[in-house]
């Protein structure tokens, strides 16, 4: 095993996941270091979302183990585990019958924070994610796609979790809004230094946001590379991806600047 300066926040040890006879994930070993954005890149059905859901135990491995902060997930109290991990999904998955404020304040509320503290936190998060304060009393269906996704991020950050899991959070947005949110997310991350696992099928996005890119194909981890190395990689899958996306030098320059 390679010695690392810091112990990983999330670690997959020879993890497999199968449904019936179908192997969705095979012998995955992967680590996420504190403060990094680990991008899980792959096409549909490659097992990247499965990998993500193993972290907050929406799924449990059929072999191997997942460790969060050095503790095996199998032994963790699942409710406590999930509340300590932010979770953002595509289309945000906001509760349609809750106002924005109630959506954002959900985890603090179920964790028993006092009401004034929740209110202050919601205000803080609205500001942090670039949302106007008057949005707080609106319902999700009254928001634009970009606003909904911002609320989704704010909600995930509410209880200040150390870990953030993001499943194609910007996938459903138009290119301009996506670009804006990606940029804001990067600057937010510079301040917050969360450990982020980020699922995407968009190489451009992985290049821009990822500290490292874990490429997955058919339930297997192909390789883990830095964005710069990914471009130069001779791995057939990696170069196939690079080829499919064309010119990416500029995206890398932007992401690492």
């Amino acid at each position, binding site marked *: 095993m390679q010695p690392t300066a810091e112990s990983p926040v999330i670690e997959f040890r020879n993890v497999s996941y199968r449904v019936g006879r179908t192997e969705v994930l095979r012998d995955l070993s992967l680590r996420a270091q504190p403060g990094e954005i680990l991008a899980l890149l792959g096409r549909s059905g490659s097992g990247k979302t499965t990998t993500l859901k193993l972290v907050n135990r929406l799924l449990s491995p059929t072999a191997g183990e997942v460790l969060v902060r050095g503790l095996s997930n199998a032994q963790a109290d699942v409710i406590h585990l999930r509340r300590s991990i932010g979770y953002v999904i595509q289309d945000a*998955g906001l509760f349609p*019958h809750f106002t924005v404020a109630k959506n954002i304040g959900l985890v603090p509320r179920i964790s028993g924070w006092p009401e004034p503290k929740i209110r202050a936190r919601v205000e803080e998060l609205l500001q942090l994610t670039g949302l106007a304060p008057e949005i707080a009393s609106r319902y999700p269906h009254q928001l634009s796609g970009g606003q909904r996704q911002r609320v989704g991020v704010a909600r995930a950050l509410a209880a200040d979790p150390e870990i953030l899991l993001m499943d194609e959070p910007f996938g459903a947005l138009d290119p301009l809004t996506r670009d804006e949110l990606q940029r804001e997310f990067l600057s937010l991350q510079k301040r917050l230094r969360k450990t982020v696992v980020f699922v995407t099928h968009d190489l451009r996005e992985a290049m821009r946001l990822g500290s490292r890119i874990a490429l997955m194909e058919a339930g297997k981890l192909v390789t883990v590379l830095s964005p710069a190395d990914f471009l130069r990689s001779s791995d057939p899958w990696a170069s196939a991806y690079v080829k499919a996306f064309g010119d990416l030098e500029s995206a890398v320059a932007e992401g690492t600047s």
Partner: protein
Amino acid sequence: MSFLRFILQNRGQVLELTAEHLWLVGISTLFATLIGVPLGILVAHWPRLNKPVLGSANIIQTIPSLALFGFLLPVPWLGNRVDRLAILALTLYALLPIIRNTYTGIRGVDPAVMEAGRGMGLTDSQLLFQVELPLAVSVILSGVRTAVVISVGLATIAAAIGAGGLGEFIFRGLAMVDNRVILAGAVPAAILALLADLGVGWLERRLQPR
């Protein structure tokens, strides 16, 4: 409009029978809701139970009401008080729409919303009471509404076994071949059904999630 005169002349009895009717329908709908909603929740979460539960409720629905009243008559504790019997029968009939709509309403909650909730650490009961039920409430209520409207009609048949209600007038009118008496039972029953429909419909819209 001579039946109106008949109603006015017998308003005391009309009111009494209407009250009886309301009571039969109200109490049986309450029981059916108390039983049907939890059953619907159960079936929505364990699809394996779907067929047996909805199947049984369906079968009950196919029994002709007069026959069901008749079948239940010899049952000891029930037979003593025919209103108990009528309430049981009406409750059984009201179950199907309530179970089915609860099932449909809960299954209709966006899976992405459920998964977000679960991923954020909501417990099963928090998911049920804060997400599933509030989002399903208008569908559930529309089942209750169907049940109430069916019950108001069915409850007239309860008079055949002497359980009272507006059916008394209808059966009496049939025996007397007097349309005025039949209408004195049928018209208030229809109005009752209409009002119940409007009332629950209003509640349904009030509680509709945005």
